[in-house]
């Protein structure tokens, strides 16, 4: 594998991890989050500060990073308890801008210069580079995906699904919307934080520009394109939307236009996503593979 492919794959895998986290919030629990990049950023900055200022390693800093993201997720999940759909959507957009502004203006976070000099991740005394770092990211993705799978098998997961489908009915069956919405937010942001930490150690430099609102939209787009609420949807979505700009690289100046058009067409004609319920893939291709069930 060439260095170029490894770089693209590493970015895709890290993004897939973050989108898995978004899937818990939006796909499993049915909450809107247009500010997911903010938690990705909080994870990245936490990792950056803990490893550069407090001298911790990636491994020892990780529990703290997860804790910080969980607390932030809890705080920023509170609006979802009081606000309805569109209000909530716009509030999460606002969270993006506010967190980004914090990174930019509060000197503790390095201001416009960000934080640099983040060390590489070491395993068994060896700093991980290139393909080895990619393997670590893949391992993390596997862990995250397994945890998500396990979550869907636990009652906590079923409760989130019920909440997503019909909140008032779920509540009259003993499921506390407060408890499970906040739970979903916390899980989702912790996973995003893991992705952020990996990102920080990969780029070895973080700044506020990396975590802006368009990135939140990109994450949501990956989730929607892949198939919201499915297990592999986040991964497929990250793969497709991560690879597209590279595939279109030869188109040079027309790259972004093509990306936007593909996104528009996908969303317009297959809003359920590639792995979604009524997608072409499910209806036409899968039955071929599985000998036509359903």
């Amino acid at each position: 594998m060439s260095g170029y492919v490894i770089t693209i794959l590493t970015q895709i895998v890290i993004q897939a991890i973050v989108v898995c986290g978004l899937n818990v919030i939006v796909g499993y629990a049915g909450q809107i989050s247009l500010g997911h990049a903010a938690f990705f950023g909080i994870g990245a900055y936490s990792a950056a500060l803990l490893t550069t200022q407090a001298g911790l390693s990636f491994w020892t800093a990780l529990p703290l990073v997860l804790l910080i993201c969980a607390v932030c997720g809890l705080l920023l999940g509170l609006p979802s308890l009081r606000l309805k759909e569109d209000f909530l959507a716009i509030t999460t957009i606002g969270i993006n801008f506010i967190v980004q502004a914090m990174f930019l203006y509060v000197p503790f976070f390095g201001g416009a210069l960000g934080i640099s000099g983040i060390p590489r991740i070491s395993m068994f005394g060896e700093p991980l580079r290139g393909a080895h770092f990619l393997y670590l990211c893949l391992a993390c993705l596997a862990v995250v995906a397994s945890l998500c799978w396990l979550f869907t098998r636990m009652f906590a997961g079923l409760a989130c699904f019920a909440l997503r489908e019909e909140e008032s009915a779920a509540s009259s069956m003993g499921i506390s919307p407060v408890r499970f919405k906040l739970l979903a937010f916390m899980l989702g942001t912790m996973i995003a934080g893991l992705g952020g930490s990996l990102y920080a150690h990969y780029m070895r430099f973080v700044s506020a520009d990396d975590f802006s609102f368009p990135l939140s939209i990109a994450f949501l787009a990956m989730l929607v394109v892949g198939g919201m609420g499915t297990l592999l949807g986040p991964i497929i979505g990250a793969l497709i939307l991560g690879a597209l700009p590279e595939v279109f690289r030869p188109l040079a100046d027309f790259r972004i236009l093509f990306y936007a058009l593909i996104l528009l067409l996908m969303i317009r004609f297959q809003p359920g996503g590639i792995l979604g319920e009524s997608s072409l893939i499910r209806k036409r291709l899968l039955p071929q593979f599985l000998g036509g069930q359903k």
Partner: protein
Amino acid sequence: MGANMQLLIEQILNGLAMGSIYAIITLGLALVYGVMRILHVAHASVYTVGAYAGVFIFQTTGSLALAFLGSMLLCAILGVLIERLVYFPLLKHPPYVPLIASIAVMLTIEEVLRLLAGPQILTFTAKLPFPDVNLGGIHLSSTLIAIYVITIAILLFLWWLTTKTEIGLAMRATSQDMAIAGAQGINSHYIVSLTFVIGSAIAAIGGILVGIYYNQVYPTMGAVPAYKTLALIVVGGMGSVPGAVIAALLLGLAETLLIGYLNVPFPRDALAFVAMIGVLVWRSEGLMGSK
């Protein structure tokens, strides 16, 4: 009049101008949200198209009147196309679907503009047919006067339209409940498209005014207003046009005074959202929204 006082007044006038422009852009967004419950983020790119159309028509014909009319027509068509081709078919899906579609549309339009006209900043030097005014040492440019007058004219027009005409009544009924309006014999799809026409034409006016005021037209000029105007319709109370206008004026003043005049070290673009969260905490349906 002391220099400080003069500066303050000038900043207030600038703030009101900014607020008026926000109001013009937000109006279309609030109208659309009112009838369709869709966050029409792409509205900001319609506004950008308005600015470009305006500058090109003006440069080819030399007539500002033609620039305004041609731009309004073009944007009206664009707005209806977006509504019919993208939003209407997606109504039955959860709201994040049309939202992502809207963002994709905005990105597409921005890129098309960039590829057609280039990424550089174009100038839009034009003199609006209003007088320059000097009041006790304070200079109000013709552009500034134009912004105030045109904004007031648009607001008066909308007020007349919604309260004194049949069409306006139909619009209000549709915004309350599309199904019930339909049962009353109102063709709600027609009303929705008409709302897009009006909102987009107003956006075109906004685009041209901004282009002249700052003497700048560039492909991404819609990006920042796009999200601020979202915060504004929340603050105003989703779908409440008067609320959005008040919120817009207040934001324009706040941004200019707090940051331009008092030099408060706060990120200007985040102010809208902070204000929004503040208002929501106080009143969860916005300033003039209804539960």
